[in-house]
């Protein structure tokens, strides 16, 4: 592996050049400005369950909130951001419902106009196998107003971004290295984030270190194609020896190499490959590797219609552990805040997708160093995203503009365990996804989309008395958007989400060192229908007001109930 020092001393006579951030420094910056986000939301919920005579059927909730980011630029090389959250729950009396919180504190700047540093609260991501927060369960496929609600409420509060970043505390350093020969330049990014405070020896201090080096090359394979990128990515999470009396320390290191190689003007190859090593508190060690290769073909023009086809092979070993990339997005065992106990037996309600729109406490704010147990309510093929361990996956995707205003997006994936769970027979998985997006020139315009996603898992003939795994998760998604005015400020949205799972599946239970301790099988049945009707006023690019009705009709093996709500949601970014 090359590093910058080696390069600078020997064959390249490297030099540090001005990074693109130098331009940032020279732009006009006001000394003080306010940035942030504000929102106001009100929900009027109505709960219904046959024969339930004890649960209060109505619940109202709402708040107005402002994240006020005070951005101070004391000089051209330094910026300080302190974002304070002020929130007032409706119904608070003379300020008693007001809460203040610190949302983000950050200092960033430039050293010698060449090295950019950031200290404090940082949103950071690397590659999908090293440092990559999984998106919300249905990221990218939720209907638009549902996605807007999820991102504006729970997602925003849980620090999810569209870039799969984890909110971390620590520091980053970024700089660019230029070369006279060979690569055009290399972008370096280094980080150090504190994971656990030691509190004077009461706990073992834990940090995550690492970074990436991304090299841009002239395309020596095909001069007419765009540049080649190669990179090295490192994430190391470590308990710090000597920070407490503990002598048994956890450590995990993931190193991958990645690259993007345009083979032709229309053909591109990308890959990531690497390994992980984990040291557990017991002294046991695990090590494994992963491979990911993708071939992509692109044809057409954005204005005239495109056709994109990709073929991907991914193999992630059963002992490949990358905590910053394999943590599930939600906490499966937590009870939702809305209608926590239902039915005459007052049983705890399991959260459903409706709760994920509104409740940020159902999201994981930080990664887990162990896998925990699998929850296959919504995902079974890749519950931990693309980096899900113990999978060998082949996937083909196709996006085609089939006719005017119409785009067909389809994919088919097959996956298999690499190591069996309780048996040498391997569980097989499949996922088929077909989506049609259509623009229609009626009135001021309208957009429709429909999607069917089918996920399955199966394993048969394990033994005479062992039940077969036969599990399916069929999802239907429909959406329609009608533009009501010429300036497109008023839009009407009708959406429908149907999420189901049924069949026999096994839950894998693991201990803190990812060893499988038990395997529990059972019949599952779950159906969740979420219709939505809303009117949206888009005041500007950064502010909108949505008023609507949203329902959640749930049927499980134990319960059948519905939660319907009327809501008003206003959001603005500034």
């Amino acid at each position, binding site marked *: 592996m090359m590093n910058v020092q080696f390069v600078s001393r020997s064959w390249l006579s490297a030099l540090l050049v001005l990074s693109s951030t130098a331009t940032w420094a020279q732009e006009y910056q006001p000394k003080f400005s306010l940035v942030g986000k504000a929102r106001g939301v009100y929900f009027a919920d109505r709960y219904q369950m046959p024969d339930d005579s004890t649960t209060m059927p109505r619940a109202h909730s709402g708040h107005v909130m402002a994240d006020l980011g005070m951005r101070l630029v004391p000089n051209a090389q330094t910026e300080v951001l302190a974002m304070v959250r002020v929130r007032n729950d409706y119904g608070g009396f003379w300020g008693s419902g007001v809460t203040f919180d610190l949302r983000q504190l950050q200092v960033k700047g430039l050293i010698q106009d060449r090295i950019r540093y950031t200290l404090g609260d940082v949103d950071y991501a690397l590659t999908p196998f090293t440092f990559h927060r999984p998106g919300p369960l249905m990221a990218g496929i939720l209907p638009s107003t549902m996605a807007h609600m999820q991102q504006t409420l729970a997602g925003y509060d849980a620090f999810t971004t569209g870039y799969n970043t984890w909110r971390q505390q620590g520091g980053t350093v970024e700089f660019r290295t230029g070369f006279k020969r060979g690569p055009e330049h290399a972008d370096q990014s280094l980080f150090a984030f504190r994971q656990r405070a030691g509190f004077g020896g009461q706990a073992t201090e834990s940090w995550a270190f690492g970074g990436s080096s991304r090299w841009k090359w002239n395309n*020596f394979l095909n001069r007419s194609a765009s540049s080649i990128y190669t990179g090295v990515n490192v994430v190391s999470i470590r308990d710090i020896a000597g920070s407490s009396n503990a002598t048994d320390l956890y450590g995990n290191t993931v190193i991958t190499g990645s690259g993007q190689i345009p083979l032709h003007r229309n053909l591109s190859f990308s890959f990531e*490959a690497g390994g992980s090593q984990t040291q557990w508190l017991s002294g046991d060690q695990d090590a494994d590797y992963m491979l990911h290769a993708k071939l992509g073909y692109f044809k057409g023009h954005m204005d005239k219609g495109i056709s994109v086809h990709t073929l991907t092979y991914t193999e992630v070993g*059963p002992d490949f552990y990358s905590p910053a990339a394999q943590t599930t997005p939600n906490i499966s065992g937590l009870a939702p805040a809305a209608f926590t106990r239902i039915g005459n037996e007052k049983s705890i309600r399991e959260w459903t997708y409706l709760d994920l729109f509104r409740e940020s406490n159902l999201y994981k704010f930080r990664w887990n160093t162990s896998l925990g147990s699998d929850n296959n309510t919504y995902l079974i093929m890749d519950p931990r995203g693309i980096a899900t361990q113990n999978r060998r996956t082949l996937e083909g995707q196709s996006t085609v503009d089939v006719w005017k205003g119409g785009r067909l997006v389809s994919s088919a994936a097959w996956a298999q365990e*690499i190591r069996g769970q*309780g048996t040498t027979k391997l569980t097989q998985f499949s996922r088929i996804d077909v989506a049609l997006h259509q623009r229609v020139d009626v009135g001021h315009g309208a957009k429709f989309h429909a999607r069917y996603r089918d996920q399955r898992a199966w394993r048969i003939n*394990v033994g005479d008395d*062992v039940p077969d795994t036969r599990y399916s998760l069929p999802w239907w998604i429909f959406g329609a958007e009608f533009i009501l005015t010429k300036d497109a400020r008023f839009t009407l949205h009708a959406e429908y989400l149907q999420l189901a799972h049924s069949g026999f599946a096994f839950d894998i239970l693991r201990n803190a060192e990812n060893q499988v301790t038990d*395997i529990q099988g059972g019949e599952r049945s779950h159906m969740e229908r979420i219709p939505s009707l809303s009117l949206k006023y888009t005041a500007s690019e950064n502010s909108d007001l949505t008023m609507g009705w949203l329902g959640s009709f749930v049927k499980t093996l134990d319960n059948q109930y519905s939660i319907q709500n009327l809501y008003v949601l206003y959001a603005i970014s500034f």
Partner: protein
Amino acid sequence: MRFHSKFLVASLGLALLVAGCERDLTPDGPSLSDLYGTFKVKTALAASLAQVDFSSGQSVYFTAETSISTDFILEIKGRTSGAVKRITGKSRTLDATNALWQGETSQFPTFQTEICDVQLTFPGYADTLTAVVTVTGKRVVEATILDDFEGGFNPSWTKFIQTGANMQFSVQSAPPLAEGTSYYRMGGTVAWDWLIGMYEMPKANMNGGAGFQLSNDAEKVFFNGVFRQMAGLDNAIILLQLREDDNGDGTYSEGSEDLWAVEIRPESAWELMSFKYSDLVTLVNGAASAAIGNGLHEPEKLHRLSILFLANPSSGYAQCDADMLAFTENAPLAL
């Protein structure tokens, strides 16, 4: 061309590296066939020794095998003492790793030299397997025993007993027993004070004046005792106090040296209780508070141990029994 070669070499190197990695493909977790097969007893219950002498360091383990991994309860019951040892687990086979008996007790009293009936059951299944083992020598307790009351009340204790009604402070031997054949009873009604009686073991009275001779590692030292209180009452409190001679002057200075304590509220059935020395706190009127002395748990500096028998003065008669008061190192006492 130069870069073509480098690229090729790098790709080949990576491919060779990956091809050279071998994975352990032994299935994870318990076998599904074990978990979901039909239950059958494959090998009957057997003891590794027909007669076991725990006093000479012997132990006995039991073997059995079923067709699937399932929960099991192995219960050993003394025919004479009525003592019970219970071992539970989940497995397809019983062996020395999960069915070992070293003479200890789960349910008091302790085992005597006697014949014991052994019974193996599987929750959810009707099968019951039986065996017999004879104890020819009792388990030797590895501990610094303050008193087990087998030879009467240890005269090394200094005691203070209030004047009250129906005061009972004596060695008893009526069943149900805990360890051995004797235990100590404390009881009485003191209407004007919480304190009913108090026993102290000063360092000077231990080991011929050599002291308690405990380890200096508070993480490794445990105080143990078997306690119960009279059925139908819940007012008895045993306050255990350990005073340290922090400055090594041979005396305990009230208010300036550490006093560690724990409050015990026994149940009506005999129960072995163990307290790690490092977990003890300073108590003021029953509430944890700041340490009085240097704040360090130093078992090697233990100056005296006090056992206070307390009850709310308005609660009436209180009665509590104690047995096998002992310090152990490295692990709680096992009886």
